[in-house]
């Protein structure tokens, strides 16, 4: 599947200062019954966003018109729990292209990278000042520069790590299957001899 290309993004950001946000919160299991990748955005954070009779919960940040943008900023250990890729699909489908946290769960990180959502790992202290700044002024622009591996806002900046292969995939819109299919002959030989 061809993916969006990602180089640099400047956007306002949405603060979600909660730790250990598991993928059951991102997309509850009862919404995993679809057989396509689309349409999960409307149920992103469903049970934090809506009451049981489908009324918006005003206190939740996605229901606050002051906040918006393509960058989600969340507490540490984001995406823990279930391996459901639906979590990454719902974040993408809602319109986010970057999630910033001080720590990501492994499977979520892979799933995000496979779906043109960039997980940006920052230090605890940078996360704290970023959360404070966007909570105070929701119009604060935040820039994520993948090429130079740098995140910045209001004169503050920090570099972030990403492995070179995944970076190349995101910048060019490649996916892993393209690479693996190119190894078909070697894999076939391995399978027979194994």
């Amino acid at each position, binding site marked *: 599947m061809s993916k969006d290309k990602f180089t640099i993004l400047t956007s306002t950001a949405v603060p979600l200062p909660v730790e250990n946000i598991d993928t059951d919160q991102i997309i509850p299991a*009862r919404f995993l019954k679809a*057989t396509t990748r689309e349409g999960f955005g409307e149920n992103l954070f469903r049970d934090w966003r809506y009451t049981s009779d489908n009324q918006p919960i005003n206190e939740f940040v996605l229901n606050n018109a002051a906040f918006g943008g393509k960058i989600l900023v969340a507490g540490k250990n984001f995406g823990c*729990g*279930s391996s459901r890729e639906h979590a990454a699909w719902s974040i993408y489908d809602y319109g986010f292209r970057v999630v910033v946290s001080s720590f990501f*769960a492994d499977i979520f990180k*892979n799933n995000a990278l496979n779906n043109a959502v960039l997980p940006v790992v920052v230090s605890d202290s940078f996360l704290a000042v970023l959360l404070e700044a966007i909570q105070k002024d929701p119009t604060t622009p935040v820039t994520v520069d993948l090429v130079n591996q740098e995140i910045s806002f209001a004169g503050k900046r920090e570099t972030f790590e990403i492995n070179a*292969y995944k970076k190349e995939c995101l910048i060019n819109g490649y996916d892993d299957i393209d690479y693996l*299919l190119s190894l*078909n002959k070697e894999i076939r030989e391995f399978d027979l001899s194994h």
Partner: protein
Amino acid sequence: MSAQKPKTIFEKIWDAHVVKRAEGYPDALFIDRHFIHEVTSPQAFDGLRQRGIPVFNIQRTTATADHNVPTKDQHLPIKEALSRHQVETLRKNCRDFGIELYDLGHPFQGIVHIIGPELGLTQPGMTIVCGDSHTSTHGAFGSVAFGIGTSEVEQVLATQCILQYKPKTMKIEIKGTLGKGVVSKDIILYIISKISASGATGFFVEYAGEAIQQLSMEARMTICNMSIEMGARGGLIAPDETTFNYLKGRKFAPQGEAFDRAVAKWKQLPSDSGAVYDSVLTFDAADIAPMITYGTNPGMGMRVTDRIPTVEELKEINEQKSFKKSLEYMGLEPGSALLGKPVDYVFIGSCTNARIEDLRLVASIVKGKKKAAGVEVWVIPGSKQVEQQAVKEGLNKVFEEAGFELRSPGCSACLGMNEDKVPPGKYCISTSNRNFEGRQGPKSRTFLASPLSAAVAAITGKVTDVREYI
């Protein structure tokens, strides 16, 4: 030839499966066994169709329906339209691509992580993946097994390989012997409570030590199953005579002389002496008691006799905020005890604790007794084979007499995808693996515990120290 660097079991298996290692790229890792189910596979099959390619090796792929299936009247068409569509999509995909499916009604159907081992499909030294984070269960056999997302399911279907960076290694050693009433579920809940829900992120764990070696295969699976709940990529246990005895005669295990040859090979797997781990943690079995969780991640656990921490006992401000939110959700007071707390539901099931030994543990507590008034108890066997064995041993009678409902196999109330949901605000003591907000149904409240602790709570109607009961 010069002496080779000592390797851990994890490194031996990983290195033996690297098809291609290129500078700057993740390893292309060959996958021996791929399990699929209805929830995380449909989009992957669509990907194959779009590319016009077949499944690379159908012999290495096995499917079952488990996450989304009803646990009552499985012989009838699934009532809920979306669930039915998802299971029918799996049927179509397996038919179109030629994959073996253990569908509803098949004698081998069940929770994917329960049927793999019981059929002998899971073997030492293998690499195993599934679009489910509890794939780590299979590590109990000394295999490298881990959960993947749907894009990766597509990769494996298309190429029998996955692109992965090699995780770091961690050894968790449990010294000594477990006390009365303490079982493998308590070991893993104890470890997670000590190192937190993210304490092993980036690592592949090897469990070792006397207390682990003494466990049965099924008890080992419970430990490896919950590796992901501390963030680990997976968890494994070196194979030994317990492993070989379990596998002998299983349907898809090597048979006869081939089995003996396989055992000789499997005996080479355990970590070499002098092998180096990136991290080593040691705990004492004597420190482990029956455990229970009080919060909304599996790291929020304690001995059943302990008190919930106070807010002040937590160091970080952010942690305090999340802690308060979690206890509010649970309707619990910081600093309070859980002993004596009434429960509304008891769920015995899931890939963590729905094997025959788990049902035997439950039966040993409830035999000749009745459940407490007002408590609803669901016993969901992990597979058709477990269900049949339970009937053969008369456990179904024990459960019936106690007022428990023995249903048909599936993931059920572990994740509440089907109709088995705990109602809003109700407390459920559960043998499953996750106590996340809404996991067992919107606004449900979960206490994770062992089958023994869940069984005793079913009888007393409240959180109870099982040691005072046996």
